[in-house]
């Protein structure tokens, strides 16, 4: 039996090319026209791949024609960007994909959920048989092992997720945190949404233009606060997100010091996304105040990415071991497969996806 994978990813093809082959790709087409005995389509924003098992060798062009959005016959010679892996290389590729090593953001975990969905779809439609079953169950196991035994998913990698991670390291449970968004910018909205998705319920929005402030407050299920009243709110809030277009600093060390006297001694986390900055950098020196500007947030995201990249070799070692085992079992045939390989890994055993 010939086990193979062919497709396009963000590494080899731009989005225009990928979308030409991801329109209404139907796995039935691959099964019927190309002559696969088993096939599975993994279609995400960064990749479109077909995993298949067949008695005869099926050409990449044949598969690509099935994936083409328009008439595949008009795409002659346009298949050069397709890659193809067979046997153990196919397993290696899938193990790397499900472990997040082949992703645009190394270590992202969303791909594993997408692979599981694709597998489930192929299984229920009857397109996935014993070969793909073995391959994907092993891939899910490997992905879990990589996550458990390396730090490949460690650390936040976007501004929003860095803000959430820091807030959780200061306050623990975010459910009781009071958040104020100052300025209705796009990044502050994204950051506020990230905090909301992690349990924040008390969100206040203040903007120079009351209309935009009220609009954002409505979008994020928050409360609009008149702009002239935002300093008063600093006595109550735990997290302040600022992104106004003010030319001068809105919050100085002196003004915050007087506000802090009226606060209980809960910490104050300030996320200053504005350029020029809304908050005087000296504020960070005050006890219990943690100030992060856009550069420091991005720097932490970069640190996390670096940490993840350092873990790639450890992850590759785990994958290599499993590729060897899978290759050996493949050459022995499926009849002698170990029962443990057949147990699917449940969704509940996985960590929540990265933001």
């Amino acid at each position, binding site marked *: 039996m010939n086990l193979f994978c062919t497709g396009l990813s963000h590494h080899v093809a731009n989005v225009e090319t990928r979308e030409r082959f991801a329109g209404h790709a139907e796995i039935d087409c691959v099964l019927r026209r190309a002559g696969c005995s088993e096939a599975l389509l993994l279609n995400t924003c960064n990749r479109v791949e077909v995993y298949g098992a067949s008695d005869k060798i099926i050409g990449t062009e044949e598969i690509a024609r099935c994936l083409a959005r328009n008439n595949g016959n008009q795409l002659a010679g346009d298949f050069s960007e397709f890659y193809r892996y067979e046997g153990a290389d196919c397993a290696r590729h899938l193990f790397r994909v499900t472990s997040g090593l082949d992703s645009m953001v190394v270590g992202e975990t969303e791909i594993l959920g997408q692979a599981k969905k694709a597998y489930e779809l192929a299984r229920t439609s009857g397109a996935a048989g014993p070969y793909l079953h073995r391959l994907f169950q092993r891939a899910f196991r490997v992905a879990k092992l990589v996550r458990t035994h390396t730090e490949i998913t460690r650390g936040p990698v976007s501004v929003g997720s860095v803000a959430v991670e820091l807030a959780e390291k200061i306050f623990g449970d975010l459910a009781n945190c009071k958040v104020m968004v100052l300025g209705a910018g796009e990044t502050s909205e994204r950051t506020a949404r990230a905090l909301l998705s992690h349990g924040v319920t008390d969100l206040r929005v203040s903007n120079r233009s009351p209309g935009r402030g009220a609009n954002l407050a409505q979008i994020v299920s928050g409360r609009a606060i008149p702009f002239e009243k935002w300093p008063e709110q600093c006595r109550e809030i735990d997290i302040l997100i600022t992104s106004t277009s003010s030319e001068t600093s809105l919050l100085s060390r002196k003004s915050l010091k007087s506000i802090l006297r009226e606060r209980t001694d809960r910490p104050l986390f300030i996320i200053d996304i504005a350029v020029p900055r809304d908050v005087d950098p000296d504020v960070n020196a005050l006890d219990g105040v943690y100030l992060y500007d856009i550069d420091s947030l991005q720097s932490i995201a970069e640190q996390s990415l670096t940490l993840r990249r350092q*873990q790639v070799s450890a992850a590759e070692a785990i994958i290599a071991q499993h590729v060897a085992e899978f290759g050996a079992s493949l050459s022995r045939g499926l009849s002698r497969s170990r029962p443990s390989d057949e147990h699917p890994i449940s969704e509940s055993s996985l960590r929540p996806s990265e933001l």
Partner: protein
Amino acid sequence: VERYLLVISTVCFLAAVGRTIFELRTGVFRPMRFNFFVIGLGFIFQTAFLSVRGHALGRCPLTNLPEVFIFLAWSVALIYLLVGPVYRLSLMGAFTAPLVVLLQGFALTGPVNQHHRSRLPANPWLEFHASMSLVAYGAFALACIAGVMYLVQERQLKTHHLHSIFYHLPPLTDLFAAITRLLWFGFALYTLGLASGFLVGQPLPWLQAICAIGVWLLYAAILQGRHLRRLAPKRVAALCIIGFSAALTLLWGITFSGQMSSLP
């Protein structure tokens, strides 16, 4: 046999230290199971040592400086095993183990095999006073460790340089809640220990008593400052370290002067 029990116990705690250092160096840090397991194992051997020694002496094994340090290390491990899982402070094990290794290492280099059975007759109030005070010291030690963890976490958050350990340290608010509870727990036990010291029925060593009251006043001031919100959490964390250092110095002074006065 006693010495071997102590050596095995120390090796267990040393394993936790070694594992922590190794994992920190490799950037993969999972303190949960291993540290808790080896510290639990070390605690069993500590208990066995104290039990064997207690039977041999016919009293609470607090007759010399090494025994006092081993009892203190036992108290630290006991409170860690009780407090760690409750407050999800498993990482505390990474900080607890070095302190225990230090205390037991010191005990092993000292005259741990020397018994003073004949010179120090059993006195229930004295034993209650000593054991209560040492368990209180254990709580203060854990508060000190939580204080170190707080300051490490706070420093990383202030400077924006997040090390691998950052992701494994508990949130600041949780750490501070643990510090406060440990301080109250230790303070209550220390008060009991101090009060029972006046019931021993022997002439009071006034210098030691004044120092002990000084330590009691220091912790009372920390708790009062916290209660009135005059002390910021960071200062409380720093004072926990200072307080425990003072308490440890006092403990050493008491035991050392006790040994000197019991010499023929």
